[in-house]
């Protein structure tokens, strides 16, 4: 797709159109199911204007229209022809805006982001769409799915080998202490939780799995950054009140489910947190891998002993996240499990902001 900024006006298409709808054997299915972008492009008057003329209203209406389209659950037959349109129209409408370089063109992405970030009308968002009317939407790009599962497996190996390494010296802090607080102080973890058999085995596993972990993590982050998908995932200040509303709903202090896009504000917070944790784990890992050569990095974490301490605590934050993550997937939105496997989602929250 075009640059991330120009993605903004018609929010819901990057994965679908960028997926290469024409090259995949499932191209027809994809196009048919990407009614979100198709319908948005076809019905939005703003999208057909000259890009330089696009204004706040156009961007806002594009966002609203696409959101409405998301829950409209149009029949595939009606959608397939329309799906052809945005492929031609959307890029044409979007690219020149960035290329033109005029003031309006420059402002447009920012305006569109604001419009997309503003709470859409409740009726237009995926608030518990009743079963039976739920549209099938393409939710996760293959790169997201592959890196998600790869990192899940790699993380298991990283944690297992990490706990093996920990068992060689189960304390944190310099020799002579005092050691930092640690409920597991001096206790080796059980064999079933360790990988490698002995310290050298644990080290070799850890340093071998670390690279694919870094590569898949970086691939995911780059995809998010350049596809524009980060908008539906990154927790921003404007999500604070929405997170509060969501929490009130979960606590049953609020009756109706707050409007949301692809993810609700609490999910955004959780996913932003876990990505940050992944980055911190990798950086603290490098800090204790090469504390002399990368001493600047080690210093950032407060020195070798503290870097090792944070690296260790990351394990339990990962485990806690995974527990909550899997529980909520199964209890609240099981359809999202299928979406993370096949890419396709037919569930309660079909919107894609």
């Amino acid at each position, binding site marked *: 797709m075009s640059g991330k900024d120009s993605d903004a006006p018609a929010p819901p298409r990057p994965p679908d159109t960028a997926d290469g709808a024409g090259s995949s054997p499932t191209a027809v299915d994809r196009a048919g199911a990407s009614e979100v972008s198709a319908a948005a492009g076809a019905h939005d008057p703003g999208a057909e204007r000259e890009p330089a003329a696009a204004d706040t209203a156009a961007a806002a209406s594009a966002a609203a229209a696409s959101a409405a389209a998301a829950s409209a659950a149009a029949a595939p037959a009606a959608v397939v022809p329309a799906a052809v349109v945005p492929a031609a129209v959307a890029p044409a409408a979007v690219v020149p805006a960035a290329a033109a370089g005029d003031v309006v063109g420059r402002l447009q992405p920012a305006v569109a982001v604001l419009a997309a970030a503003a709470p859409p009308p409740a009726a237009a968002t995926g608030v518990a769409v009743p079963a039976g009317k739920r549209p099938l939407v393409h939710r996760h790009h293959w790169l997201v799915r592959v890196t998600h599962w790869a990192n899940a497996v790699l993380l298991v190996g990283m944690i297992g080998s990490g706990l093996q390494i920990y068992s060689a010296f189960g304390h944190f802090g*310099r020799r002579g202490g005092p050691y930092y607080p640690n409920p597991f102080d001096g206790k080796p973890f059980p*064999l079933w939780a360790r990988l490698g*058999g002995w*310290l050298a085995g644990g080290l070799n596993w850890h340093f071998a799995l670390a690279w694919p972990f870094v590569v898949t993590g970086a691939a995911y982050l780059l995809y998010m950054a350049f596809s524009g998908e980060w908008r539906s995932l990154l927790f921003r200040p404007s999500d604070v009140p929405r997170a509060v509303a969501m929490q009130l709903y979960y606590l049953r202090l609020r009756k109706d489910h707050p409007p949301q896009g692809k993810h609700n504000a609490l999910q955004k917070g959780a996913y932003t947190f876990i990505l940050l944790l992944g980055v911190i784990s990798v950086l603290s890992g490098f800090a204790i891998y090469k504390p002399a050569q990368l001493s600047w990095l080690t210093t950032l974490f407060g020195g070798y002993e503290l870097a090792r301490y944070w690296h260790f605590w990351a394990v339990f934050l990962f485990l806690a996240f995974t527990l909550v993550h899997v529980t909520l997937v199964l209890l609240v939105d099981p359809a999202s499990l299928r979406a993370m496997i096949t890419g396709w989602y037919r569930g309660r929250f079909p919107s894609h902001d």
Partner: protein
Amino acid sequence: MTDPRAARGAADRPGRGGELSRRDLFRLGLTAGGASLAAACGWDGGPHLGPTLHAVSLANDWVGEKLLVSSSRLAPVYPVSRRTPAGLFPAYSISHPLPVVADPAAWAFEVKGLVERPQRLTLAMLQALPRVTYTVKHHCVEGWTAIATWTGVPVASVIALARPTAAARYLRFDSFDHGYFNGWDLKSAMHPQTILAYAWNDRPITPAHGAPLRLYSPIKLGYKLTKFLTAMTFTAERPLGYWEGQGYPWLGGV
């Protein structure tokens, strides 16, 4: 230097006796070919993945040596006040009791292999060479750290004396501790903080820390820092090492 494999040198490892015997039992179980759940979780890669893990370890060594080790970047130094109390700085040896030189006057350090001028250096000769003193952090592969002051002659000075030939690419450090030895890359050996140490915390080095002479460097893990030195040999082929040959990362750089 410390014992990277807890099963050996167990007597030196305070407060960890119970764990050690359990590990020994576990390894015994592996050797016996027991296919228990415990063995499965202690998997080191087996005959199929093991070589792959080793290959990745060599790739990591390459990255560490070629990209990360800088011959000018110094490891951080610390004030003397931050030294680890002497009794709390761990030490170990392969042989028990501690290996000691029977006749200190007869001891000498040999520099040989691919060099133009082989050397035989007594302690007095080594002490007459340029001297470096620093207070640095010791990183053990197990994960602990300790700070001490080390004094000795830069390995680079000894290398300059011996004049290695163009074919020399590695160094092998030998000891009189039950055949303990280490292989080093020349770049790390030439690092200004890599020394042949004869003093520890301002006093002649004790037998526990490798008397009369040991290799020391804050850019390597403890198991790379050969104690009880007898010789260093320039080679064209990469020498392994006592722990390195058993699966520990060869470079061991920090």
